[in-house]
């Protein structure tokens, strides 16, 4: 008996020792993987023993009483437990290997998915709440989205991301959900988009290069420059511009070189400003100040779009957060997260845009509204957090555990309290920021020989100077930009207003100097404002008696103190900013006028407003381009058209309207003969006439012919409100008119024949075509592709290979149109999986030659209403391989009355006779 007892005791002790050894070895293995196994991984030491103990206990308590309350929107994923083990088997590489899983849809159907862990930080994988990434099948997208990322909910991240979404920065959209893996709640998560080509298309951005830079942690490249603005090798593409090689980084190298050169060269700096859309970058910087989110720095969280159509390089908000330093209440409006912002912050026009954005966002209460939206769903968050093992175990206490034995539930208000404290601190930061912007600016003035000086100190500018004179008033005054005591050509004289008062409509900013006070800070230098002077010359040296000024943000008016100050002259990029044009004072120019014969032997880049007189002929040499960057008024007449033609036998490049300064341009009675396309720096032109990133353009009586080598005769991209009336295009090399990512495009009286590919090709655009003849296209008369919307009215499509192809989530309404002798009249199908759907076409009061010439795939629908097919009247017929309710509702919603209303609003006449079928052209 005693011996048996001894053996039992020994057995139990051995078993205990074995178990504890196995447990300990597992802890050691896990910790090794967590803290040491990944490349360049730094983790604080972590008590896995306590973590596992607490989470196991909490799990048991949660399982004791199942909480079925409905919290946040549930997302259910399923993955085999062995697959989870395999994902963690040989980290970090194993985490990237896709495993099979399942996704529960809202309608309770189940889709196959691929699933894996996300990120390079081992902290994303080894805790209960893991970071997940899923990939749906190409034919099972949800709202055109295939890839989803799930990261544990952090209030600061979510709020910061929502603010970025609201103010219009390019950033993944975020959704707060409760994640269930294999029916077990993982607690609150953020569902977000993956940055890839589909993301770009959903954001109405062309498929272009999207660069990612992460010279940090596991993604560090050994011994390589970690300042990404100087390190093209450290960036990789995560979306591609498919017209260049995947490994081609010439666009990036162009940007980085220009960035380097622009530091010492004003011409290069102007060129840099041309390619970065100052409005967007200043808004981005405003967002950073508002959220104190500076961790998209020079070495990580760097996501940059390189758009060869708009010509812009654009940062994307990635991994947002709000990082309030409660120990430091000092407001720094010039904090620069990377070298580009450091350079731009020295520029007064950038400062002006940035501070305007901050002020308008603060006044709009946008941030407060986002917080209110979150507070409104606090109850749901609380329910979901009540099932969150990590949340509960982080607030583990024996007393709560004891109580839970009686109540059957374990609760914590930890995160709710943290959120409350954070909101209070954040609102205080917002309020301090507003107070700071509304402070009385620090400024003085002082009389000098020929005029007077004003001095601006600190961050807040002064604006709208109002000068008072006691006796005789000067006729004019001017800012002496180069301090040479005389008026130069670029220095503008300011005259008194109708009330004889002098108001200087400029904003004056203090210089921002880049400095480091320690050698260690040379890595990340800062900006310091210094007292800055602006000198004025007055007519007859008559001096004011006093000067009033305004804080442009509070609009409060103060009087300048009369006191000399030892101040620096303003530095090159810190010129006064014109309040009205928001431009620097010295860049006003007169329009350039073209007349008679213009020989173009080298590419012309025209940065002035342009007038082209009737009868002007441009003889353009081989491959040379004319790029207009400001408004163009080209008014030819029928007798004396404006002509762009070849100088020799070889084709010229492109005539381009580039950028929003070309808004409101007009081309009337113009002939384009013999263009092709081209490239200028980082911008690609695929049309003989290229209209990029502009709006309110009129093209009337245009003749185009004989293009070569490039895709399009006329290419319109990122444009709005383009009216094309009476355009003739013959024998285009490929597409005659290509319209991408553009809205409100009207084409009237177009005659397009013998196109090498499509007559009109649409992508992500809405277009009205009316009274047009599209004949003999080698491919489609009209290709309505990739989420486009077309109204085609009163037109003839004759002898094309395909009449109208409606594809990829597009809709076409065809009315009063003849389709005859086309090989195929209608062809609706899904071509690009990223759009998740085929095409829907509604044909109304139109004439078709043969109903066999209608093709659809299983994802598409065509409806015929009151039309004739082969002289047979069809009152109503729907062709569809499966009755897609979504398609039916699209067809019902886009009824005749709606389309008639749209057309009438645009002044487009419909065919009057109600029983008339087909076009009356």
């Amino acid at each position: 008996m005693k011996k048996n007892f001894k053996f039992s005791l020994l057995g139990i002790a051995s078993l205990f020792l074995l178990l504890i050894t196995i447990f300990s070895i597992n802890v050691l293995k896990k910790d090794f993987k967590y803290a040491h196994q990944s490349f360049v991984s730094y983790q604080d030491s972590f008590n896995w023993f306590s973590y596992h103990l607490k989470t196991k206990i909490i799990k048991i308590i949660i399982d004791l009483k199942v909480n079925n309350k409905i919290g946040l929107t549930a997302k259910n994923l399923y993955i085999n437990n062995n697959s989870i083990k395999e994902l963690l088997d040989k980290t970090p590489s194993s985490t990237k290997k896709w495993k099979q899983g399942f996704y529960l849809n809202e309608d309770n159907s189940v889709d196959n998915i691929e699933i894996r862990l996300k990120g390079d930080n081992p902290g994303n994988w080894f805790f209960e709440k893991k970071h997940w990434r899923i990939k749906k099948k190409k034919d099972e997208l949800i709202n055109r989205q295939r890839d989803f990322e799930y990261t544990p909910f952090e209030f600061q991240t979510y709020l910061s991301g929502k603010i970025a979404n609201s103010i219009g920065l390019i950033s993944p959209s975020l959704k707060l959900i409760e994640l269930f893996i294999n029916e077990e709640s993982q607690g609150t998560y953020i569902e977000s988009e993956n940055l890839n080509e589909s993301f770009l298309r959903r954001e109405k951005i062309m498929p272009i290069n999207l660069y990612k830079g992460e010279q940090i942690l596991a993604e560090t490249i050994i011994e390589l420059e970690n300042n990404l603005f100087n390190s093209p090798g450290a960036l990789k593409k995560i979306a591609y511009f498919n017209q260049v090689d995947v490994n081609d980084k010439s666009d990036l190298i162009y940007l980085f070189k220009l960035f380097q050169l622009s530091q010492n060269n004003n011409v290069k700096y102007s060129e840099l400003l041309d390619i970065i859309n100052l409005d967007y970058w200043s808004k981005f910087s405003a967002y950073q100040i508002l959220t104190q989110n500076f961790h998209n720095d020079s070495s990580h969280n760097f996501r940059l779009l390189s758009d060869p159509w708009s010509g812009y390089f654009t940062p994307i908000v990635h991994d947002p957060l709000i990082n309030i330093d409660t120990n430091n209440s000092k407001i720094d409006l010039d904090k620069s997260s990377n070298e580009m912002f450091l350079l731009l912050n020295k520029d007064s026009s950038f400062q002006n845009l940035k501070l305007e954005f901050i002020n308008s966002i603060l006044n709009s209460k946008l941030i407060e509204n986002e917080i209110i939206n979150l507070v409104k769903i606090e109850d749901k968050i609380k329910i979901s957090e009540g099932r969150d093992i990590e949340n509960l175990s982080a607030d583990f206490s024996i007393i709560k555990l004891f109580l839970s034995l009686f109540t059957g539930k374990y609760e914590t208000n930890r995160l709710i309290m943290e959120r409350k404290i954070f909101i209070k601190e954040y609102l205080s930061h917002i309020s301090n920021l507003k107070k700071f912007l509304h402070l009385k600016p620090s400024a003085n003035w002082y009389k000098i020989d020929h005029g007077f000086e004003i001095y601006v100190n600190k961050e807040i500018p002064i604006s709208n100077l109002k000068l008072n004179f006691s006796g005789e008033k000067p006729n004019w005054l001017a800012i002496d930009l180069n301090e040479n005591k005389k008026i130069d050509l670029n220095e503008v004289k300011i005259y008194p207003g109708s009330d004889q008062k002098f108001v200087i409509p400029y904003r004056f900013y203090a210089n921002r100097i880049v400095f480091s006070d320690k050698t260690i800070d040379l890595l990340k230098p800062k900006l310091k404002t210094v007292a800055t002077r602006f000198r004025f010359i007055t007519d007859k040296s008559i001096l004011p008696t006093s000067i009033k000024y305004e804080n442009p943000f509070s609009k409060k008016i103060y009087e300048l103190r009369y006191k000399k100050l030892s101040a620096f002259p303003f530095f090159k990029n810190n010129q006064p900013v014109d309040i009205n044009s928001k431009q620097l004072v010295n860049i006003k120019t007169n329009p350039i006028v073209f007349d008679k014969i213009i020989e173009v032997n080298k590419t012309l880049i025209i940065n002035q407003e342009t007038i082209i007189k009737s009868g002007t002929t441009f003889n353009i040499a081989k491959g040379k381009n004319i790029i207009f960057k400001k408004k163009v008024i080209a008014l030819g007449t029928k007798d004396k058209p404006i002509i762009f033609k070849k100088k020799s036998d070889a084709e010229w490049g492109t005539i381009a309207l580039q950028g929003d300064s070309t808004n409101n341009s007009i081309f009337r009675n113009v002939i384009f003969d013999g263009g092709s396309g081209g490239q200028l720096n980082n911008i690609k032109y695929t049309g003989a006439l290229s209209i990029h990133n502009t709006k309110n353009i009129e093209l009337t009586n245009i003749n185009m012919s004989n293009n070569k080598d490039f895709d399009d005769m006329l290419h319109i991209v990122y444009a709005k409100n383009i009216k094309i009336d009476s355009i003739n295009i013959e024998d285009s090399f490929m597409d005659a008119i290509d319209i991408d990512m553009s809205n409100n495009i009207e084409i009237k009286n177009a005659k397009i024949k013998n196109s090498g590919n499509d007559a009109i090709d649409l992508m992500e655009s809405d277009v009205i075509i009316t009274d047009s003849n599209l004949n003999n296209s080698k491919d489609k008369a009209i290709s309505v592709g990739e989420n486009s919307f077309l109204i085609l009215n009163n037109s003839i499509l004759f002898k094309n290979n395909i009449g109208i192809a409606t594809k990829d989530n597009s809709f076409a309404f065809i009315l009063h149109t003849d389709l005859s002798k086309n090989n195929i009249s209608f062809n609706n199908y899904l071509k690009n999986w990223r759009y998740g759907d085929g095409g829907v076409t509604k044909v109304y009061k139109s004439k078709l030659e043969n109903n066999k010439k209608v093709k659809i795939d299983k994802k598409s629908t065509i409806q015929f209403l009151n039309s004739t097919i082969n002289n047979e009247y069809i009152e109503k017929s729907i062709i569809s391989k499966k009755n897609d309710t979504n398609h039916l509702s699209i067809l019902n919603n886009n009824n005749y009355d709606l389309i008639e209303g749209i057309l009438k609003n645009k002044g487009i006449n419909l065919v009057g006779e109600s029983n008339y079928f087909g076009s009356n052209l």
Partner: protein
Amino acid sequence: MFFKKIKYIPILLIILIVFFFVFLAVNFDSRRSIFTKLLVVHDFYRIKTITSDLQNRNFPAAAKKLNNYIKFSKKISNDKNYMMTGIYEATKLAASRATTQEDYNYLENIFKQLIDIDNRVYKPHVWYARALSDNDIGKSLDHLKIAIEISPSESDAYREILRISQNTKDPKLASKYCVVYYSSLLGGNLPMHFDTLFGSFNNNKFAIKLVNKSNKFTENYLPASTSLNKNQLYEFLPTEVIDSDGFNLYFSPLVGLKINLKKIYYHSDNKIFELNIGDITVTSKSSFIEDSNDTVSVFLIPKINETIRIRHKNFQSIKKIGILMDIKKMSIANNNLCRR
């Protein structure tokens, strides 16, 4: 008695081992410290064993040890894991000792494996290209082009191309890459264990610090960007109005740079003071200095944090400084091969 007690020793040992495991599992700070130290010792051991082979120039043995090191690393994880740094350092050490084609050939497979693990690292492409150059110049040049794309300003890949073009008597190839080398601005080298003054060794950053009369360094450092291969007037606004006896220039060049210092301008409110090279004295921490008629040339040594000290008579109430200088890369081949 002794034999009676000795039978408890294994049990005691087992208990001790278990206790050790439990201790490491529970005491997370000690665990982290022990693991970290063990890994450092492991890497040190690996490098040390290779060092002894390299001292004897026994490259086959060094290659074998490096291969074992990589194999061991793959047992943990197939791609880049924590051992990558140690493997890279050990390979770098071996490559630095390689002189003959044969030496490189012994290491060829190691270089290839490093590229397979991470093809975005600069040096392995250059080393691999060197190893391949005896029997596959085309492939060798491909890797050198990749290296140049990774870090366009670093000289190693260009030097290797010039060696190949010298051997193959291909002046066109040499000239093509000489032009690229002299005009390339981007790229840099981040040392593995410390930052330089500007983060990395690069050719596009420098800083100035004004020195005042009392020789107290009160003024801040003012960073700037270089414009290579041209006379450039670099302008600086100090952060406060200052009296100046001179200034220091700070560089962390990636390759050998030659600075031709021509003029210095000091701006006060009423006057511009112009200084020629006859008005200044120049010293440096490690660079070499040469005078010509109107220029002082400073030859910067690559991959060293450098300070150039320029002193002159005192100027007061300075609000702006201009330095006219021409910064260019030093040649990596003579003009006969490297025609630009």
